[in-house]
């Protein structure tokens, strides 16, 4: 029983069933023998009825129309009510064909849409990653920013030290920035390149680290030193800045407590 049910459900409506029957006959809609078509259709509806299947109203209406066409076709030619056209303004045969042709048109269009639907499913848009442009003045990505960070650390530590100094030991100011500047320049005179991490190797206390660091920052500020990072994750190297075209400011030299002629010379 369910087998038949499935079979009948395939048809979307009476027009669909008619198109199916026409297709089965392998004839054009315009060439179809309406009398035969009507018989086949009514047979189907009768089968449905016999199987006690629920028959949609549309099928019954169509069956009635087809019965009318069939009965008329069965009359001898001279007895057919040709004038029915003028009276009703409609010939049920052509009305049916018109409906079928129209329905077929949309069924075909639906099939086209289905193809488009499937194609669309398999069409992938180009969705490139966002194009990124480096801002005109890029935020420093290399050495400088790391100093910022370190500077911040030291600032914090210094503050803690001050906060706790009152309850603990007295802060012994053993190092000064200027001493460290001197030390740094001396080191650089011996070695043209210093590793950043080596600078703090010998430091024994927080104040010393801070002083060394501040000395480094000061020398960078005074353009005596440059820090370079060969690659993104590379070791930071410290080396003397290239000599200014017209020599250094005497004031700077004096401050550095170093004779002008022994000032670091550029090495590359």
């Amino acid at each position: 029983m369910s087998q038949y049910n499935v079979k009948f459900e395939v048809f979307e409506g009476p027009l669909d069933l008619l198109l199916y029957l026409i297709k089965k006959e392998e004839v054009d809609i315009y060439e179809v023998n309406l009398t035969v078509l009507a018989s086949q259709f009514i047979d189907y509806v009768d089968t449905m009825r016999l199987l006690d299947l629920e028959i949609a109203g549309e099928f019954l209406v169509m069956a009635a129309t087809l019965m009318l066409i069939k009965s008329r076709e069965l009359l001898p030619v001279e007895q057919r009510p040709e004038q029915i056209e003028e009276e009703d303004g409609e010939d049920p045969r052509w009305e049916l064909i018109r409906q079928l042709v129209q329905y077929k048109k949309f069924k075909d269009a639906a099939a086209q849409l289905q193809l488009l639907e499937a194609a669309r499913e398999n069409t992938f848009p180009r969705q490139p990653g966002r194009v990124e442009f480096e801002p005109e003045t890029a935020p420093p990505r290399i050495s400088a920013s790391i100093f910022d960070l370190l500077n911040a650390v030291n600032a914090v530590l210094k503050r803690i030290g001050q906060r706790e100094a009152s309850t603990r030991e007295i802060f012994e100011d053993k190092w000064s920035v200027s001493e460290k500047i001197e030390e740094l320049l001396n080191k650089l005179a011996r070695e043209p390149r210093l590793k950043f991490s080596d600078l703090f190797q010998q430091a024994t206390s927080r104040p010393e680290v801070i002083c060394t660091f501040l000395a480094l920052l000061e020398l960078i500020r005074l353009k005596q030193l440059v820090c370079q990072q060969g690659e993104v994750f590379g070791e930071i190297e410290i080396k003397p800045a290239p000599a200014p075209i017209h020599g250094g400011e005497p004031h700077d030299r004096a401050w550095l407590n170093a004779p002008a002629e022994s000032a670091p010379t550029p090495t590359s």
Partner: protein
Amino acid sequence: MELKFILESLLFSAQKPLSLKDIRDALSGAPEHAEGNETVAAFKKAKDEELNAALEDLSRDHEGAARSYRLTCVAGAWQFVTQPDYAPWLKALVGVRARPPRLSQPALETLAIIAYRQPLTRAEVEQIRGVAVDGTMQTLTERGLAETVGRAETVGRPQLYGTTALFLEYFGLRSLADMPAADELRRIVVERPTAPVTADPGLATVAPDVLQEIVIQPEAKPADHPLAQAAELEVNPGK
């Protein structure tokens, strides 16, 4: 520097389909990023006709190159897409995209009728399909493929239905005019009816004269075809 290559670079880098407005905005905004560059400034105020011509030209270029991708225009917005043949690899690369379930046969038929004949009432759809369409109409409106677009000036002022912009997008159509014509149908119409066919002209399905025209001029050119005209209605261009 050719306009079409500028447009190509834009479309190539865009993360979404670009409308004419998007393109105009990029052209007018570019001089800001290239001060003193006269070439960039020259394209600042390209006219829509120039843009459209360049886009069509570009689209033909890529069609002709027959590579794995092409330039499409869907619902008025341009985008580079891959050819469907490469779907298996792209699915493997980017993962299967979530798509709503495919439309059922009744839904597709109903949608086709609405698309070609819009605006029309539900009763008119039912007359063409020969069955009630309550359920499918609801599905279509719920999925945003069809919508009410007004009321008919007839008894009861029934609601009129039309397709949405999503409809175009869903099927990858540029516009309603771009819908595939049911060519096969035209070939079927070979026999001239022995008697003139008439029908109640009140039925907005308008098919009777359509049928006549088809029958009388089976060689009618696609452009003259009533179907094509129907498709050009553009009753709802704003959507």
